[in-house]
């Protein structure tokens, strides 16, 4: 008995750098060879930029009116909708393994289950961050090109969007991080729920219902609570004007989302570890 266990122990219990590198490589090969990931990344960029461009184009500042518009936030509107694609992208690697039974092969090859979740989270969020950078840069560029023609001109106090501007850079970089955190949150929920439809429903519910409820709730106390403690808080990272009236400061808001993502990931890792595959 003991002789049978001992050969597998060193590999299973001390996953050196090599083991983690191998795990990362295995997951990367899976993602690279599944055609859906490439399509979804392209869809993430397309949806984010298209909705941002549409939101920018739909807003005008008529002559003679003062427009209390945060042009940076306006240009990054698409992020709130690109996150739906991020959710699918991040949910599928885990849920598909569970639905096809592939997870058993994966866990046989990599018995350290928490490492499996961590590696999947790393690969998925890495891909989302890369695509997010492209999408956010395109959104800022769209704002820079379209806004001046819609009345948001330098003469009226709206300098062209530029990443050299501190708050704009923070909003843009923060939006990329926001998408990455949404990916981590989705991976965590997927590891807990396992079924793709239910996971997607849960993640999209988490992301989209709080804004709707916050819109309808008449009570300001509850409105502020929702904006402060739900994943919605992460979007405060996009604000560049009226920072004092924000329900939560930009980085703290992103921190709230990070806490949600961490809770989901830890819950996911525990769930994968404690339950049978």
């Amino acid at each position, binding site marked *: 008995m003991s002789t049978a266990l001992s050969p597998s122990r060193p590999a299973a219990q001390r996953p050196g750098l090599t083991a983690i590198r191998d795990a990362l490589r295995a997951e990367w090969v899976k993602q690279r060879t599944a055609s859906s990931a490439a399509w979804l990344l392209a869809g993430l960029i397309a949806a984010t930029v298209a909705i941002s461009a549409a*939101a920018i184009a739909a807003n005008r500042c008529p002559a003679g009116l003062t427009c209390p518009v945060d042009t940076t936030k306006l240009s990054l509107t698409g992020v709130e909708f690109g996150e739906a694609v991020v959710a699918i992208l991040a949910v599928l690697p885990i849920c598909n393994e569970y639905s096809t039974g592939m997870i058993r092969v994966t866990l046989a090859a990599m018995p350290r289950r928490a490492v499996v979740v961590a590696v999947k989270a790393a690969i998925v969020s890495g891909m989302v961050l890369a695509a997010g950078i492209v999408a956010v840069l395109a959104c800022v560029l769209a704002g820079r090109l379209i806004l001046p023609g819609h009345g948001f001109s330098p003469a009226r106090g709206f300098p062209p969007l530029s990443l050299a501007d501190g708050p704009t850079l923070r909003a843009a970089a923060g939006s990329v991080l926001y998408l990455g955190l949404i990916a981590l949150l989705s991976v965590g929920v997927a590891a807990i729920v396992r079924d793709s439809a239910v996971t997607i429903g849960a993640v999209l*519910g988490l992301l989209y219902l709080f804004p709707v409820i916050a819109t309808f709730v008449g009570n300001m106390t509850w409105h502020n609570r929702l904006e402060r403690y739900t994943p919605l808080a992460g979007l405060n990272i996009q604000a560049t004007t009226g920072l004092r009236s924000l329900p939560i400061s930009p980085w703290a808001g992103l921190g709230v989302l990070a806490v949600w993502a961490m809770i989901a990931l830890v819950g996911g890792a525990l769930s994968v570890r404690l339950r049978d595959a």
Partner: protein
Amino acid sequence: MTSGSIATERPDVSRSRAAARVGFGPAIRSEWVKFRSVRGWIIGMIVAGLLVLLTGVFLAGNGSIGCQNGPNSPALTGKACLPPVPIGPGGEAVSDSFYFVHQPLVGNGSITIRVTALTGIYTQGLAQVGQAPPPAHKGLEPWAKAGIIIKASTRPGSAYAAMMVTGSHGVRMQYDYTSDVAGLPGLASAASPRWLRLTRSGDTIAGYDSADGRHWALVGTAHLTGLSRAVQAGMFAATPPYNKATTSLFGGSDQGGPALATGSFDNLGLRGNWPAGAWSGVNIGTNKLTPRSPGGFRRAGSAFAVSGSGDIAPLAPGPLSPIPSTTVEEPLAGVFVGLIAVVVVAAMFFTVEYRRGLIRVTLAATPHRGRVLAAKAIVIGSVAFITGLAASILAVWLGLPKERNVGEYVLPVSTFTEVRVIVGTAAFVAVAAVLAVAIGAILRRSAAAVTTVIGLIVLPFLLSVTVLPVSVADWVLRITPAAGLAIQQSIPNYPQLSTNASAAAGVYPLTPWAGFAVLCLYAVAALAMAAVLLRRRDA
């Protein structure tokens, strides 16, 4: 050979005919058994119903209302702030406040007048204690109005018919709060005056307008039921408060303040029995929540100048409502939250068959593939309808008292409308479930199907109530399945009312049934496409 082959074919034909005859009942039955034996789906539907109910009850009556009777009187909250709300002849809540220069008219008769000007002033913001009042600016609200009116009595909410000039909607005939007929266009001025006439004959009042006092055109006819022999008739002026909404991304801002409109009249002509022989002026309707400019009238020979504020119109929800009003559908706003759970279950109802290969067994048992789709749609639609109905009834039953308790006025609607709102909400959930099951059949993958349906219904609505300007949101809520939510709107969109209301206030661009039809069209199109694909593709 020939006879043998005929003999073997015959039983086949009769068996397939028999299968066709009995096919649908068992198909529904087997789909129902599938649904009821998956515990997760039952739990999903219960969760959906609870989400609709809990969110709705949480959202209902969540506002806080405060008021003061005067600068030095104690602050009041909740119900104490609610003024008595007049009810119009049609049973709807109305605002009925204006300055009325009147005398009784007994029996049949008419009143004719020439309007030479309609002017207005407004202030931005309210006067603060111990500070100079804000400066008055010249300007007219679009629905500032002045003209002549015949009214059953001076009681707010009583029946009336009026001919008026308005700030930017030309001459109108309005009667009994909800009816509005357009007359001559353009603003009245000394160079281009407007002549107005109202003629009473029993319960019937006819409104005429003219540009020169000689050539008259009939604008409309009102039948005011139960008019007594003696009515109050004369001149009036009213204007809603000043409001300038800067709608932009991330919430518009409303700037408002009291306004006062003044109509200048001359060439007054009366026919019939006007026994009093003298005019008296009175402010009709008071409302401590909405500050009003005091009205009044001046007479110089045959010329009158009548000033007033307020409005004669139905009440509608929205930021400009003069009282904190809400609607019967407000406790149903949670339908969105439950919808996601319903969509997940409905999409999986088809997609899981593909995951486990069960679809081949299903199609072997029911070879008519369209019938499988129809059976699934009927089962999931019925389950979603019953879930939605139970949750809606409970949400309204628990939510409305909560709204009334915080001092919100629930705009009254007819029983038929209330039933339409509640049953319509359940039908909205049911049709969305059918759309989801059809999209599940088309896409075959749970994740893709759930995301597509949420992207079709929830995202357009979310975009419309949060980031999109009203003009764009109006189109989004016409052409996406989210239009179906219009079935919840209990108070119609009155064109004679500036409400600044958007979907966030429960006001939709399409009428309830038209909006619901848009959702149904999507569901039918998805079902048709699913039926074709199901037949063409291998399972």
